[in-house]
């Protein structure tokens, strides 16, 4: 990223990317700019995905395709022009896509996935490849799916008529910046000494009328609700053997106790800070708990054995785990606090208590990180990134770790996990309309293409061949259902979607290409920026009913 001028005025690059930097920041943008995407198959859908990645500024792209531009391509692919007829599709598409953003380097290769895997395997060898992410657009014969490199994030896309799907494979994906709706963590049940002190200091004269040297109405109406709740929690505990209000009925009682203390002989008849306090009782009054996502990270074996080759992420995760273990299970504080009715100085004072605690927690974590790195003689032990540790601590309760099943495993006949997942989707209460049927039909298409060398429905005889093609597809579906252990007859939706896929005859609709191009690009961006949460591992889009469904297959 270009640096910001001292006056604060944005650079031209920041101006161009303003609307996206507000989502993923300089961090995300830097990662995007480091990516090199290889597209196998310059189809309309493939080109739409690249369009949506070139515009926000990925580093490089390479279009790999061995076909020539045909008239029919011009009716579906925006990144081919009439003047390109008869020329290599890879070259033409790369040129028109390249015009979208002068900051992105583009290239092409007149080649196919099969050829690359057989003749120039170095191109996809994790040790030598230039590509950081692979984008495969069907048709791809199934045997090739078994030969994909295991360490490069791969996005496998179908787009046929009104139906599309995306399958993601990536090595274990960890996310710090998941962008939850809120990072606020008030710790009302677990206040630390400085917070408790502030609360008792600022609420000392709370219930004393102004005439008896207590708070004025103005002061009373501007005590931040966080401090009100802390004070009334103390009162509550004294009359409840030290226990905070835990059950729903206790909280309801506590809530009315708070509202009873509100001054009502004031303009408007109520005090906003008390109303905010009452509103927060059900949501904010709880013991700080570690989220499922963060538990998965902290319990990952990678946290156990830190070595000199452990990634920074896992070293910090381990340090956070150590921190929590010696801190009654409490994670480092996020430090985030929402806006609330208060005077400026009172609010800032409270905010500083939260920020200072977050800062001191992060400093402790940093010390633990340093200890682990020194112990294992980690090569990065002298360049510990303080900002990365702060960012991690700020998001400590919102971490995610996603483990993906490989595409080869999905297509292997002996994968019991896969069978279980498909059977569960077929047997669920909502099975009838489930898009698992669309998945099965797409899988049958894949199988048909592999054995026939063409898409089902891709015939010149038009309507006549429809039924024959359907019989072939239905046989494949029956076999697959039998393999996963499904004992009933082929479900109706499976049949219908299969017919719809034959109807398309392997052809794309541009509208579906546009939708799939957007869906896939969003997921690629989430994986590259390591922000937001991508799907694991399959999404199906049904353009007839306009809906999606995700599966882990």
């Amino acid at each position, binding site marked *: 990223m270009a640096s910001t001028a001292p006056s604060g005025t944005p650079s031209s690059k920041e101006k161009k990317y303003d609307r996206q930097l507000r*989502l993923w920041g300089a961090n995300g943008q830097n990662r995007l700019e480091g990516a090199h995407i290889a597209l196998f198959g310059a189809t309309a859908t493939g080109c739409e995905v690249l369009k949506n990645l070139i515009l926000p500024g990925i580093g490089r792209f390479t279009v790999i395709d061995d076909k020539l531009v045909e008239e029919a391509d011009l009716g579906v692919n925006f990144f081919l022009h009439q003047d390109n007829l008869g020329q290599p599709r890879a070259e033409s598409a790369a040129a028109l896509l390249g015009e979208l953003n002068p900051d992105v380097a583009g290239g092409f290769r007149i080649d196919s996935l099969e050829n690359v895997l057989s003749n120039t395997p170095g191109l996809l060898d994790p040790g030598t490849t230039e590509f950081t992410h692979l984008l495969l657009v069907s048709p791809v014969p199934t045997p090739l799916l078994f030969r994909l490199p295991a360490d490069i994030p791969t996005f496998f896309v179908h787009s046929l008529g009104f139906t599309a799907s995306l399958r993601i494979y990536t090595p274990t994906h960890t996310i710090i910046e998941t962008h939850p709706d809120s990072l606020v963590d008030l710790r009302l049940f677990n206040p630390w000494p400085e917070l408790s002190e502030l609360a008792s200091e600022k609420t000392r004269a709370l219930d004393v009328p102004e005439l008896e040297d207590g708070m004025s109405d103005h002061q009373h109406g501007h005590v931040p609700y966080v401090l009100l709740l802390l004070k009334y929690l103390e009162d509550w505990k004294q009359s409840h053997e030290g226990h905070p209000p835990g059950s729903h009925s206790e909280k309801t009682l506590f809530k009315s106790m708070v509202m009873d203390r509100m001054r009502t002989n004031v303009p408007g008849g109520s005090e906003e800070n008390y109303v905010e306090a009452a509103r927060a009782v059900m949501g904010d009054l709880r013991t700080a708990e570690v989220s499922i996502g963060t538990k998965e990270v902290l319990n990952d074996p990678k946290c156990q054995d830190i070595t000199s080759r452990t990634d920074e992420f896992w070293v910090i995760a381990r340090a956070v785990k150590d921190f929590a273990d010696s801190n009654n299970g409490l994670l480092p504080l996020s430090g985030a606090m929402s806006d609330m009715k208060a005077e400026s100085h009172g609010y800032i004072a409270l905010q500083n208590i939260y920020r200072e605690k977050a800062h001191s927690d992060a400093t402790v974590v940093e010390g633990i990180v340093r200890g682990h790195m020194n112990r294992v003689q980690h090569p990065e032990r002298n360049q510990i990134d303080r900002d990365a540790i702060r960012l991690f601590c700020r998001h400590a309760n919102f971490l995610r770790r996603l483990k993906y099943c490989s595409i080869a495993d999905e297509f292997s006949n002996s994968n019991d996990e896969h069978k279980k997942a498909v059977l569960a989707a077929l047997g669920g209460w909502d099975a009838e309309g489930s898009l698992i049927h669309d998945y099965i039909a797409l899988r049958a298409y894949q199988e048909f293409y592999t054995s026939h060398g063409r898409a089902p429905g891709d015939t010149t005889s*038009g309507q006549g061949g429809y039924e024959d093609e359907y019989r072939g597809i239905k046989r494949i579906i029956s076999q697959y259902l039998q393999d996963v252990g499904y004992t009933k007859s082929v479900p109706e939706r499976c049949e219908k979607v299969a017919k719809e896929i034959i109807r398309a005859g392997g052809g794309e609709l541009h509208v579906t290409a*546009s*939708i799939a191009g957007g869906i896939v690009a969003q997921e690629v961006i989430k994986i590259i920026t390591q922000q937001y949460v991508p799907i694991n591992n399959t999404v199906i889009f049904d353009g007839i009913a306009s809906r999606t469904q995700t599966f882990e297959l």
Partner: protein
Amino acid sequence: MQRPAESPAAPKLPHETLNREPSTAGPSPAVPLQSSSTHTEQLPDIAAMTISDSPRWKYLNRILSRKGPFADEDYDTEMQKTFLDDFKVFGAGGLGCEILKNLALSGFKDIHVIDMDTIDISNLNRQFLFRASDVGQPKATVAASFVMNRVKGVTITPYYGAIQDKGQDYYMQFKLVICGLDSVEARRWINATLVDMVDNNNPESLKPLIDGGTEGFKGQSRVILPTLTSCYECSLDMLAPRAAVPICTLATIPRQPAHCVEWASMLEWPRVFEDKKLDNDDPEHVQWVYEQALKRAQEFNISGVTYSLTQGVIKNIIPAIASTNSIIAGSCCNEALKIATGANPYLNNYMMYIGNEGIYTHTFEHEKKPDCPVCGNLATDYTVDPEWTLEEFIDRLGEKPEVQIKKPTLVTERRKLYYQGPPQLNEQTRPNLEKKMKDLVDHGEEIAITDPGLPFSLRLNVIFS
């Protein structure tokens, strides 16, 4: 895993059959497939070809000429070649680039587009028909000529101006309207206009409206059949109004960086520059606001005021990315294609797409509001404290998210309650502002409200509490 929402069948369009009537022009003679070696010498007249004649539309034609298992019983594969020939569509808004591309590549041949904006550098991260050298040019004309050059045979007629510049006679020429507008006001206007155009004696007067919008990784698309299904106005209360910060917070007790920016732009600017309006697009103005906001923030020990935040607050910037636009515009045009051809059932009637955490779509039928001020027939009951002054009544009305009025004019059958203008009427009615409601209207009496922000007149039945 999410629960799939099988949406109920969409209601039938009254003119659905009309769409499918063969066009009066005879079919064009089939043109032999061009080989790559001759394509430069002998170009076919693509504009004159129907979808089914042209090798270019092989994939689209394959779908249209084969009946699918989800399509309507009466889907006619013989008639499909005429579906798109005479289907004039209208598009507008920030999703315009994507919409034009998608319509042109879905076989629509006669497309009209309106956009009042010129190209800004911050559009380039998603509005893919524009280049840095186009900055300052009108979006509508640049986009139209780009797509016409790329997709041969399509005619796109641009108009550089506001959608409100055109009247009902203009919109009557289209069969379908697609809007990816970013302003609530413009959407309410087009929605109210299309509802108002519906004439029950003329099925052609019902123009389906497809509306799309995005924010970050989220978006929505919906199909509105004016008067038949829920309209834009019916769902206005789904929009959470931006919580306004009380002026006294801005003026005396700022706590957030945004409070400092709003103080600088809303209070300090008018105080210092009495006669000059703040121009959000003028970098010098933004710089001034930023510097004032920063100073104020330092005074109150508030951290976080940046130039980017300043811009975001005063321009109310909504994050926008290419991929979400691609999804939503694709969805809108998918529905247009299905409506125009009947190739598959269309959306009934709302889809939300949420991509922040995994992918989640919510597809459902948004219900028509019986008392919708645009497509409903009745005046809405509105509870009023008889002791309120007219001014209080207006203030409370302004707080309602489903109304969103700014400068209303109010009348009843028997008297003018309050007029914003002209000056003599304003003067004449101004004293009413301090009068109590009970002295101005009767229980059950109807008040008609017009407002520059309202594309229709709002009718309320006063119910005294």
